[in-house]
């Protein structure tokens, strides 16, 4: 029928339009990912300097700090989820949300009360749709995180960690983000950020050399006070950068697959349209022939 042919033609056209969009998204993601990885590399000197300083402090002073000690007065824990603002990145947001849900379940099973801090519009809408309460949320700029947004997130969490138990203080902070392994592998990861484990910080101290005996100006306590929040901020920033690079890589791959699928569909619809056209021609011929036969007899 002429009808079926037209329907196929329309589908081919709309699939081609979609394909163009997928291709554009793929190219945009591909061009941004280089920049995102560059930013990860640029942030490395800062985080290395801070990690080194924190390990120096940890090895040379026995001062204790609220950020290093477990809190026993509250069973609230904070979970920070870093997801993306936009979809079209395959299972990127879904898998990091699934990881978070698993963590929340585990924490609740051990008698903890979970406060969710969410960054990324996709995750925010996931939780608001399910009417789950969020302690705080951030949206925008998930594929190019800014230092001041990371600082804002870190400061909010540090305030929550400092707050007394009655005011909703939390005793632990877990971060769920996606680690950028390489262009094809991005892994959702859970880390416990607070209280800080100094043991972890001591290991990557240096190139095999012993850390020198430092003088602390004005005092070890003051240096620790200034250093630890910066350490947390820098780690949250680096988590966000990793997540951004992962998001772009996931988007590039998803859009690449989508483009290929669109091509397959176009090919399939073209075949079907051709078949319909041939069927139509055959039918017309047989109509003419049978009409002529009827007249001749």
């Amino acid at each position, binding site marked *: 029928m002429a009808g079926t042919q037209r329907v196929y033609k329309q589908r081919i056209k709309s699939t081609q339009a979609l394909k163009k969009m997928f291709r554009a998204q793929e190219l945009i993601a591909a061009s941004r990912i280089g920049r995102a990885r560059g*930013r990860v590399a*640029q*942030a490395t*000197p*800062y985080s290395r*300097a*801070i990690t*080194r*300083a924190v390990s*120096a*402090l940890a090895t040379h002073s026995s001062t204790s700090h609220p950020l290093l000690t477990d809190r026993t007065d509250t069973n609230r824990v904070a979970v920070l989820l870093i997801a993306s603002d936009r979809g079209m990145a395959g299972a990127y947001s879904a898998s990091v949300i699934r990881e978070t849900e698993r963590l929340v379940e585990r924490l609740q099973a051990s008698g903890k009360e979970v406060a969710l801090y969410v960054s990324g519009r996709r995750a925010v809408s996931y939780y608001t749709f399910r009417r789950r309460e969020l302690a705080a949320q951030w949206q925008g700029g998930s594929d190019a995180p*800014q*230092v*001041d947004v*990371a600082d804002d997130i870190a400061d909010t969490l540090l305030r929550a960690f400092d707050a007394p138990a009655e005011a909703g203080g939390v005793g632990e902070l877990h971060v769920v983000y996606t680690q950028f392994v390489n262009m094809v592998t991005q892994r959702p990861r859970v880390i416990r950020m607070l209280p800080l484990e100094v043991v972890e910080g001591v290991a990557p101290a240096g190139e095999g050399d012993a*850390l*020198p*005996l*430092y*003088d*602390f*100006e*004005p005092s070890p306590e*003051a*240096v620790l006070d*200034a*250093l630890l929040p*910066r350490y947390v*901020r*820098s780690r949250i*920033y680096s988590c966000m950068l990793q997540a951004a690079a992962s998001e772009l890589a996931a988007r590039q791959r998803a859009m690449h697959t989508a483009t290929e699928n669109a091509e397959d569909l176009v090919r399939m619809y073209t075949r079907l349209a051709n078949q319909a056209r041939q069927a139509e021609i055959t039918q017309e011929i047989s109509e003419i022939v049978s009409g002529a036969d009827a007249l001749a007899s």
Partner: protein
Amino acid sequence: MAELEVDVVAADGKIWSGHARQVSAPAADGEIGILAGHTPVLSVLRRGEVRVARAGGEVLRWTVGGGFLSVDSDLVTVVVDSVEDATGTQVAH
């Protein structure tokens, strides 16, 4: 005379890196000056001006919004929160 190796880094990137003769920075309780052979020190910085004097007599200046400084075996790392240039406008965060 031995030279210092200096790195000035902010959260989102390296600002400057190179050799220098002297580094002065606004430490928590007064200006601190670093020459080669300085004892290892880890110091909190206030808001103020970081100066790096190079061997040729050239002096580099940044107005920083706080941070910290570490010195160990002639390797000076200045970690700053934010940098404003000499005229006071923000060039990098």
